[in-house]
């Protein structure tokens, strides 16, 4: 008996599918492909290009709202940054919290590591930290980069994606059930029963819908925002829109939104806006900028066709007279099927 997890998706040939032998295949391969998904389905939990001023000589702290797996998976993190001087030490720290509450947030450390940056001045530094558990209850990550001792730093990107260990026995909180070949290896002795057939779908769908996919991202420093919406009038001012691709999906999808902003004074009601642009009747959602992570949903009508099916989304911010509004983070997550 073994739970076999292939490291590559195994493709049964058309002839294997349409002229199946009186044996364990192709069902055994299909079920082991479900095990493969539990280990290797890796859509991005977060993919964020940071917005900050040029040539940072201070630490940066970014709050990244997330919707992690119910299975409390391990995730791998890739950070990209550039320092003007060669071989600097930058400490990368990632924390998690179940509830963001500004300065009063209780953070749990995921990891902290001193990274020696590129040996080339101005060269790209890519720091990868593999297989870090993120709790199912986590609602935000805090990513911190310290200042280099000499020169400056630009923060480019962080990528967070699932990298779980191979599945072990038992039903997972997501609903996925790994396959053990104990019975099917004696396929001529045991019935091909309904549960095996259906498990190919139920486990695949459980993994698909449990691992949310990051559809939209925008993130500024927690305390030193480059853009503060403080110099113009009090209408909404949009950022350039972004195009989200939903290959072969539609005609609509519904996104889960997580938005974090705050004001320096005055009312904070409905100052942050997320909407679709470019289609008639597109929907709009507004959020309060109250220094908590606000949640909502946005149904979008998809444009294009086939692999190039998309929606254009826009973030906008307004302020009240004499005050600043600071948008720190805006994230959208897609659950396939929604």
């Amino acid at each position, binding site marked *: 008996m073994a739970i076999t997890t292939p490291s590559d998706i195994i493709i049964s040939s058309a002839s294997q599918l349409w002229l199946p032998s009186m044996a364990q295949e192709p069902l055994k391969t299909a079920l082991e492909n479900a095990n493969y998904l539990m280990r290797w389905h890796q*859509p991005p939990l977060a993919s964020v290009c940071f*917005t*900050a001023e040029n040539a940072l000589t201070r630490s940066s702290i970014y709050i990244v709202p997330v919707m992690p797996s119910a299975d409390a998976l391990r995730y791998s993190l890739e950070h990209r940054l550039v320092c003007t001087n060669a071989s600097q030490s930058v400490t990368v720290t990632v924390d998690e919290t179940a509830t963001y509450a500004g300065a009063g947030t209780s953070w749990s450390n995921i990891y902290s590591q001193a990274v020696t940056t590129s040996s080339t001045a101005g060269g*790209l530094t890519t720091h990868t930290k593999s297989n870090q558990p993120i709790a199912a209850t986590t609602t935000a990550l805090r990513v911190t980069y310290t200042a280099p001792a000499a020169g400056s730093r630009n923060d480019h990107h962080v990528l967070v*994606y699932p990298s779980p260990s191979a599945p072990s026995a038992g039903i997972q909180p997501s609903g996925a059930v790994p396959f053990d070949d104990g019975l099917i290896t004696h396929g001529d002795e045991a019935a091909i029963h309904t549960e095996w057939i259906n498990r190919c779908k139920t486990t695949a769908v459980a993994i*698909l819908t449990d691992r949310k996919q990051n559809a939209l991202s925008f993130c500024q420093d927690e305390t030193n925002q480059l853009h503060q919406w403080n110099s113009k009038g009090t209408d909404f001012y949009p950022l350039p829109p972004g195009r989200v691709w939903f290959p072969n999906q539609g005609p609509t999808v519904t996104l889960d939104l997580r938005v974090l902003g705050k004001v320096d004074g005055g009312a904070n009601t409905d100052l942050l806006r997320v909407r679709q642009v470019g289609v008639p009747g597109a929907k709009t959602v507004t959020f309060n900028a109250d220094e908590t992570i606000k949640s909502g949903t946005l149904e979008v009508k998809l444009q294009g066709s086939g692999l190039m099916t998309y929606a254009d989304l826009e973030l906008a911010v307004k302020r009240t007279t004499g005050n600043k509004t600071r948008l720190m983070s805006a994230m959208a997550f897609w659950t396939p099927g929604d």
Partner: protein
Amino acid sequence: MRPIQPRNFYSDDLTAPITGEPTPPASSALLAEADSWPVAVAVTPYVGTAHIFDGLSASGLFDRYLAAVIAPGAIHARAALSRGWATIVNSTGATNYHEMWSSDGGTTGNDVIHTPWHLMQSLSYLPEFEFQYGAADIADSGDGIVDSPTNNLDRQLELQTGSSPYVEPLFVTQAAGFSLVVTDRVADLENL
């Protein structure tokens, strides 16, 4: 020959079982349906994340390094590039195109993709980049497939084609937004 069958998860009934029969016969249709689900989830491209960021406000911010996780079966991709601008000025120091590469396609010389910015009356005149308060648009990068370019063409990005996901390093200049879409996949999954 086993081509990729696109699956629209929105129109599928994700909760219905494949079969409700207590002792179903091992029919080829039933086995094919069972086999199709894990394969479809594995090879469907992940969502193309729209990254919104300020790559316009200072020359030191023009370059942007990032990466994307690529699902199995991909060959090429295109990008959507968001741009923001204000007035038209003689924008010396900036170029009238986005530079872009994928690590798999090469990062230097003719492998660097050039996707045009707005071109004005004189090629030396460009919109003044503006992230926060400007007008904006989105441009899709080129759709031509030229894997051995002899010039800096506006063409599709090259990806590794494999049977498990991987992280593809990417680069783009002078953008306020970036998203990647897999546009070309293997014709026959049996060749993965």
